[in-house]
């Protein structure tokens, strides 16, 4: 389907229309902003805790979620890129898919850089890519917005809302505005140098060890990272004796994450775990498998890391230490 475009006076017009048939997340109006929230929408599709099945002593029962249709409204390009990435990872996961099928994604173009973000460097923004959303909001002025409809799902959802079609020229103007936003991002050559150093294995082991001392295994980075998808499972007994198997978000920064039953652990050293995390986010092997890096440039890890091992801090140190090395 060719992308269609309309004028919109305000995102709330669309929100109010969609609210007739969908649950809207986040529920607050005026949530369409050019800054991604600290918490990505990851948990809306890949729940932090969820039942996988129950067992009553005789029968196993499936516990697939059955959510009503819902809208993720005003999602920034970094988070949409992450959902697109997760769609591949969870392609055969019935729990994820049960939610994903019910979700309508309304993206929003960012027109100014956010504090920690570097989406242009990892090809994840600031403009929303058509294949990652059902509709895209793009602000023209205080009182005028452009609404792009990317697919059939989006078009169907618009049914009943009368909007004026936009001029063809708006596409070019949108591209220009996004390009000018890209130019406003800080110089992040250290990121490119860091990525190169990681893939060429130029990061000194001592640096990984140093970063490992700083890592408190708090799990903040993996909880907030919109592409982190590791989970653990456990069984819980209800008061009636039924057993529930649940899965919960896990974190590869925990020492016990990869510890084997024999107590052998290939990543017992904290530095090894930090190295693995960043290799998974910026490794070329992962890029080949998923078509892109695991990092979408949201910078949340920088914000939430108590140990100063977030993306900017780590990549700056890698860039400087690796340089010293060569």
């Amino acid at each position, binding site marked *: 389907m060719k992308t269609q475009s309309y004028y919109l006076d305000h995102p709330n017009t669309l929100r109010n229309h969609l609210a007739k048939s969908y*649950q809207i*997340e986040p*529920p607050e109006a005026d949530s369409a902003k050019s800054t991604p929230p*600290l*918490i990505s929408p990851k*948990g809306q599709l890949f*729940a*932090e*805790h969820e039942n996988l099945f129950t067992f009553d002593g005789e029968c196993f029962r499936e516990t697939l979620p059955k*959510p*009503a249709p819902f809208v993720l409204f005003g999602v920034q390009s970094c988070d949409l890129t992450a959902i697109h990435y997760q769609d591949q990872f969870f392609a055969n996961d019935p729990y994820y898919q049960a939610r994903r099928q019910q979700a309508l994604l309304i993206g929003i173009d960012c027109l100014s850089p956010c504090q920690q973000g570097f989406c242009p460097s990892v090809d994840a923004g600031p403009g929303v890519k058509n294949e990652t959303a059902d509709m895209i909001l793009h602000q023209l002025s205080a009182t005028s917005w452009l609404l792009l409809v990317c697919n059939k799902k989006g078009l169907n959802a618009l049914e009943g809302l009368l909007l004026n079609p936009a001029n063809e020229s708006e596409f070019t103007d949108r591209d220009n505005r996004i390009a000018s936003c890209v130019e406003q991002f800080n110089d992040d050559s250290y990121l490119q140098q860091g990525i190169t150093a990681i893939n060429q294995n130029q990061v000194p082991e001592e640096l990984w060890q*140093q970063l490992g*001392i*700083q890592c*408190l*295994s*708090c*799990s*903040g980075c993996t*909880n907030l990272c919109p592409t982190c998808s590791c989970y*653990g499972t*456990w069984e*819980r007994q209800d008061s009636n004796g039924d057993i529930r198997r649940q899965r*919960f978000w*896990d*974190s590869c920064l*925990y*020492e*016990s994450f990869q510890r084997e039953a024999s*107590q052998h652990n290939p990543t017992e050293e904290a530095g090894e775990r930090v190295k693995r995390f960043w290799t998974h986010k910026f490794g070329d092997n992962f890029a080949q498998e998923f078509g892109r890096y695991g990092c979408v440039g949201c910078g949340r890890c920088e*914000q*939430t*890391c*108590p*140990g*100063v091992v977030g993306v900017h*801090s780590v990549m700056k140190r890698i860039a400087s230490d690796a340089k010293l090395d060569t």
Partner: protein
Amino acid sequence: MTVQVTPTICPFCGVGCGIDLRTENNKLISVEPQLDHPVSRGQLCTKGWNSAYGIDPINRITHPLIRTAQGFRQASWDEALETIADGLKQILVESGPQATGIISSARATNEDNYAAQKLARAVLKTNNVDHCARICHSPTVAGLSQTLGSGAMTNSAADLLETDLILVFGADPTENHSILGGHIMRAHLEGTKLIVADPRCTRLAKLADSHLQLKLGSNIALLNAMVKTILDNGWQDKKFLDQRCEGLEQLTASVANALEGVEETTGISLPEIESAAKAYSQSKRAMILYGMGITQYVSGTNNVIALSNLALICGQIGREGTGVNPLRGQNNVQGACDMGCLPNVYPGYQKVDNPEARAKFSQYWKTEVPEHPGLTSMGMTKATLAGEFRGLILFGEDPVVTDPDQNLVKRAFSKLDLLVVAELTMTDTARMADVVLPAASFAEKSGTFTNCERRVQHVQQALPPVGEARTDWQWLAAIAQQLGSDQLDWHDSEAVFREITQITPNYSAMNYTKIDQLQGLQWPCNHETPEGTAILHKDTFPIGKARLIPVHPIDIDELADNEYPLLLTTNRLHFHYGCGSMTRKSPLLERETPAGLLFINPADANDLGVTHRSAVGIRSRRGYVETRAMLTDDLPPGLVCMPYHFREAPSNQLTNTAQDPLTKMPELKACAVSVQPLEPGMSPRPIDEISALKVEGVK
């Protein structure tokens, strides 16, 4: 299915991080950090991230329970309250108010704690009210109130990023106060000098510019040597000493020989001491942080005074980025103290033995408050065994497990005529109660917590209480009513807080609206400082001039010998809090370590034939536990270390009961032990199993 987000405060340590609770259909689905929180700035530690597991409805007490010959039976609130009131009335008539008392909780809100001491003083008419601050920072209060006039953290968390040097003394903030530990790492990476004084090679010690790895318990020797070096070199702040301190002459005389033999006593070389003394005294702004590695010694109070002496002679206090800063363990231990849940002070540290203060409270509460001095928790235990104390109300504490004198407490509690315990889950203490009341968790109530930088913060209700659980001040009020008193008849937690502000000078200009607007208020907050106070002692000390008090090194009570050749100290893990009752409900945190561990240097392990993760037995003169050995260079040879989170292997079985004479703080940081490997393939036996065998053996 709409998700609701309620901003509140993390229930674990005294840092007081901002945490958002995401709920859906009255269930907690996740927790998140608050981006704009003044202390935590979008961060949480692993305990905070796992806090949803801690208040999971599984295992919670949901209804009042009354003890019968056959065990507990469920009861209505009316019946439970009647039973409590009848029991109290009988004791009051027969034995007087001195036979009753309340132990409140450093985990509960200010409102709960205020209600607890008011029930004791205005209704039961006793000053018998206390809480657990006694075994963490009582030496801080005793020491700093003598030297500075106030026992709280002098500066703020934000100062860590506005200072030139941080001296961490006997504290492990990355593990116990992780967000502050993180601020220290950040400051250090940005150029702030970091000095760590600790017998263990902590995480911060590994990153520090200088690690003073002193011998266990040699704090005063090291601190006095630093003071002596500073005075000898003229590095002290003469102007500050002249204008704001007294006692310099005595101090100078007392440290005259402080450098003699100090290398041997502390294990630190003179050049290292000199370098640290110079760096601390010559920095424009230098900040001291300290913890249990100072307080939990027989010399606890003197250790605190020695630290205070160092800060005062250098004038490193009363300005941004300076100060003497005790790191407090519990979310509201500061608040429980502020609210006067101590036998000798009313709210705001107004002294019970001061007739004016007594008159003030009698007038404000419109009832005569008691004159006689109150009992500490230990005092109540002893009075019970002496037959002089009969009725105790206790909440949010598990002294049967956590008190250093476990066996004594158990004996006393079984002798009480009435023991009322309000709790989240069936703790060992609750099992001994006559009446158990279901308490609301932090997510199920409103009120305020005061963090270690004196910041009063708003705790907001996100969930309905589990079952029939009630907020502590509510059931305390219900007991008062049942006793015929309307003293605790408040409409909501805000009304309790309003009363607190009317009678507590440091809180007098606070209210919920302002707390919300300004993201918490740091006391003192009164008509002179309506927006609170970030830094104490700027122009003057509460006692006028600060006091320099000579203190001399005191040996640890129990030294290593042939029979017990290793020294044991205690530590905490990043992953667990206290006795683990909340953190061990997380599958992630519980997976992270064995249920009990002993850290030991590889050289010692090799001598003993102990391998990594193997089972070992540890014996002291007082007890025996089994656990797993973790080989690590973080400990020097001769020193081993255990965390106290695991009820399977409680370090309290081993630790010394020798006490700081002034505060009764036990020497939990040092005792002598022997370590033996268990048979290959054997697992460590939990303490219950070992004790059961011992009883059988006696039979």
